[in-house]
């Protein structure tokens, strides 16, 4: 393309200098670097994981004995509502976003995401939304309607505190964050791949994240509508869920689950992607049936839209709907089964290295299989009318979410830690971490299947002694086992935190390619330089990095795969052709300013609309500053832009 000099306003707003700090807190707060943003996503998500974990432990303590009094009924309801909300929206999704932010550009061979400032905006919106949501604890109590927030129980009449207002507005803010980030990542993947990186050469993690972003793109507006309806009802007196005026409470359920079911795949697919990276690396062979795994991921994403009403088999939909959704739900088990078969066959015939990351990945295969199979038992609609809203369901989806998604994220921590921080996590502590979590998950969630089938419903602050039964299936016994298990999981997580601290303190650097890895993100320094690659690599095949290291060599025993170049040599070859000029977007004040406006508006909606006006003013200031700021500044240490339209962003036009 032609390089034409384009004029750049000298200073944003003519008042502020661009932030230029390369170190210290300013280098983080105003950063637009996808890697720093990824790390910040990870840290904040981990914080919320601990918050949600404490909520879970309190719930388990309350349920450890009949008619227990650790928590009051009101507090218990807030606790399980916020446990689910926190884990789903403030831990699993943003942690997946952390991985996606950090590794997507690296895996496709790009220097950043398509819209770096929007990326920063997403992060700050998520952080402020999460904090806003949790301030409800100190402002009259958190939401108490369950994470599914069924109407009309969520109306002001039935939940007079501000908890649900915080929940609705907080999720709205977090939703905007996810929507912006989904657009950003889709554009990055579709448009910014390195030369030769065809769609079917992309690493599976990138593929799964891409599917997830499309799910987010289309699922979020639906929950946005539902949340608007609810907040208009609670705050401005609209009639949407007012049964006296003829409202149908099932409207909320449909809107919620049309979002809520794709949400399940939004949660699980990134981890599927992670373990699809980890398993081949440590089995030293490519993912078995790459195309099948990719297509089944896409199929799950697609069919996932047609099964939402299986959350409503007891809602009274009528037999025709129930039958249709029951069959559709069974259908989705097929691509899921394909994935499990492929992972298992990836191990088959390999040369398995049981690192901690690998153990977590194998743990996911095992635990997710259990969760998937118990899922099939409730696809059978009549059986589901027995199982739904009991602990059987709680056991099922925790196997999927903790056993599948969370264990997968931990596999990712151990696998990519040396890439991100340049140091290897301690493997010994890692094994402790794994086994504690693995046994913890089974001890906590397997008994829940029994509890549910013995008739213990969910969301009950107490269960009575007279309904516990005797013998092997005694409810009290299994409730106590589950509580013990939850503390095992907690101690596993504690091991991880200890590991992080121990690793941070040690001086020893990780080798460049500690796992003999296969994909592009390893074909650069650890941690990567700010511009990721000295030269954008040209891709020839799936597992590009592996094929640069290994070649088939004829020996006297026939052709053998032999390591012909070390990672260092591969990297040196790349560095030799380093681009002379690399330019990166400049840091910016505006993402954080703009993001800050939204919680202020939200507090205003709850307390005083004048405050909303202030928030809106901050928002407008943010947009104004953003639009007038070129994405690369003249007065910064960065070179001014020279391309014609390259530096424009979505936001630069409004």
């Amino acid at each position, binding site marked *: 393309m032609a390089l034409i000099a384009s004029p750049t306003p000298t200073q944003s707003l003519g008042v502020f200098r661009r932030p230029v700090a390369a170190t210290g807190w300013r280098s983080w707060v105003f950063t637009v670097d996808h890697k720093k943003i990824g790390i910040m996503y990870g840290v904040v998500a981990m914080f919320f994981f601990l918050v949600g974990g404490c909520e879970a432990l309190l719930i388990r303590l309350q349920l450890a004995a009949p008619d227990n009094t650790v928590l009051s009924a009101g507090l218990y309801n807030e606790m399980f509502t916020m446990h689910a909300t926190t884990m789903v929206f403030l831990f699993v999704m943003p942690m997946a976003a952390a991985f996606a932010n950090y590794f997507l550009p690296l895996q496709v061979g*790009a220097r950043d995401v398509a*819209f770096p400032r929007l990326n920063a905006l997403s992060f700050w919106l998520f952080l402020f939304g999460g904090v806003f949501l949790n301030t409800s604890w100190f402002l009259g109590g958190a939401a108490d309607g369950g994470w599914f927030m069924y109407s009309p129980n969520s109306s002001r009449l039935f939940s007079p505190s501000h908890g649900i207002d915080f929940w609705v507005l907080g999720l709205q803010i977090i939703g905007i964050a996810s929507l912006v980030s989904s657009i950003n990542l889709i554009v990055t993947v579709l448009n910014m791949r390195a030369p030769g990186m065809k769609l079917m050469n992309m690493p599976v993690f990138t593929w799964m994240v891409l599917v997830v972003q499309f799910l987010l793109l289309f699922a979020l507006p639906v929950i946005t509508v539902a949340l608007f309806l609810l907040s208009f009802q609670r705050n401005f007196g609209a*009639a949407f869920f007012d049964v006296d*005026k003829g409202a149908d409470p099932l409207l909320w359920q449909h809107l919620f689950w049309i979002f809520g079911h794709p949400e399940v795949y939004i949660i699980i697919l990134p981890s599927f992607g992670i373990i699809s990276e980890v398993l081949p690396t440590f089995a030293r062979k490519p993912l078995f049936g790459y195309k099948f795994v990719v297509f089944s991921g896409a199929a799950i994403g697609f069919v996932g839209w047609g099964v939402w009403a299986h959350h409503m088999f007891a809602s009274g939909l009528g037999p025709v709907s129930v039958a249709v959704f029951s069959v559709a739900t069974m259908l989705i088990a097929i691509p899921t089964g394909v994935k499990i078969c492929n992972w298992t066959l990836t191990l088959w015939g390999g040369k398995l290295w049981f690192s901690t990351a690998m153990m977590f990945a194998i743990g996911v295969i095992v635990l997710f299989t259990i969760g998937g199979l118990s899922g099939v038992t409730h696809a059978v609609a009549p059986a589901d009318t027995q199982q739904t809203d009991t602990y059987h369901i709680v056991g099922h989806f925790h196997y999927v979410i903790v056993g599948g998604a969370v264990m997968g994220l931990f596999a990712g921590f151990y696998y990519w830690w040396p890439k991100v921080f340049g140091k290897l996590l301690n493997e010994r502590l890692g094994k402790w971490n794994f086994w504690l979590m693995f046994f913890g998950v089974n001890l906590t969630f397997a008994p829940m299947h029994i509890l549910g089938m013995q008739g213990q419903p969910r969301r009950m602050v107490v269960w009575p002694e007279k309904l516990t039964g005797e013998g092997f299936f005694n409810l009290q016994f299994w409730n106590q086992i589950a509580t013990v298990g939850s503390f095992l999981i907690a101690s596993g997580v504690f091991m991880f935190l200890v590991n992080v601290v121990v690793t941070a303190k040690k001086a020893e650097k990780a080798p460049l390619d500690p796992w003999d890895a296969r994909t592009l993100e390893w074909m650069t320094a650890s941690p990567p330089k700010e511009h990721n690659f000295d030269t954008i690599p040209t891709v020839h095949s799936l597992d590009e990095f592996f094929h640069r290291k290994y070649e088939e060599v004829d020996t006297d025993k026939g052709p053998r795969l032999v390591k012909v170049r070390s990672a260092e040599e591969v990297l040196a070859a790349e560095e030799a052709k380093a681009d002379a000029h690399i330019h990166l977007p400049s840091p910016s004040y505006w993402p954080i300013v703009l993001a800050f406006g939204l919680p202020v508006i939200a507090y205003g909606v709850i307390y005083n609309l004048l405050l909303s006006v202030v928030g809106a003013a901050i928002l407008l200031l943010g947009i104004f500053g953003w639009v007038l700021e070129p994405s690369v500044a003249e007065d910064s240490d960065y070179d001014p832009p020279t*391309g014609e339209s390259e530096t424009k962003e*979505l936001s630069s*036009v409004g």
Partner: protein
Amino acid sequence: MADIAVHESVTSHDDHGPAAHGSITGISNNKLAMWLFLGSECLLFGGLISTYMLYRGRHGSGVGPAQLFDIPLTSVSSFVLLMSSLTMVLAVNAAKRKDDRNTNLWLAVTGLLGALFVGAQVYEFTAFYHEGVGFTTSLFSSSFFTLTGFHGVHVSIGVIMLLAMVAIISRNKVAGDKAEAVEMIGLYWHFVDVVWVVIFTLVYLIPA
């Protein structure tokens, strides 16, 4: 991480722009993002329209859509909005020709037509309110005001973008500098128009 100095990255070649590796899809990042955003918006309006369709007959003994709507007035304002799509096309054309003067002219006309539409909607809302149909009156009224209100807000944002664009182009030092931005506003504007065609048909024309 902190040891990575920002200064290292010095340069000429922009890798964030569409031309970085020769945009693979052939659509620039900005436009692709706008298309994706509009795809998402389809489901937003889909949800709102479904809610309205479910609730449009539920107004108890109060005023319903049949008695309320003033079809001639809304037809005129719909026509105005449709015409604005035409002027938007002219603006985009002018921008592609790097004709800043005509670009601004047509952008301003488009904005004006949009503002007229919003004005008509405000008038309509006020009239309904005086007939006793407020936001909280019935399920029908809540969902009607929410659906058309959301659309009105979209048009208003569009008008603000158009006028801001006029201001920005007036400061253009290089003719046609903002052509892509104009094109993106055009995409947004056409989308909002198409949504109105759907809303007008479903809400106003097809009887409950």
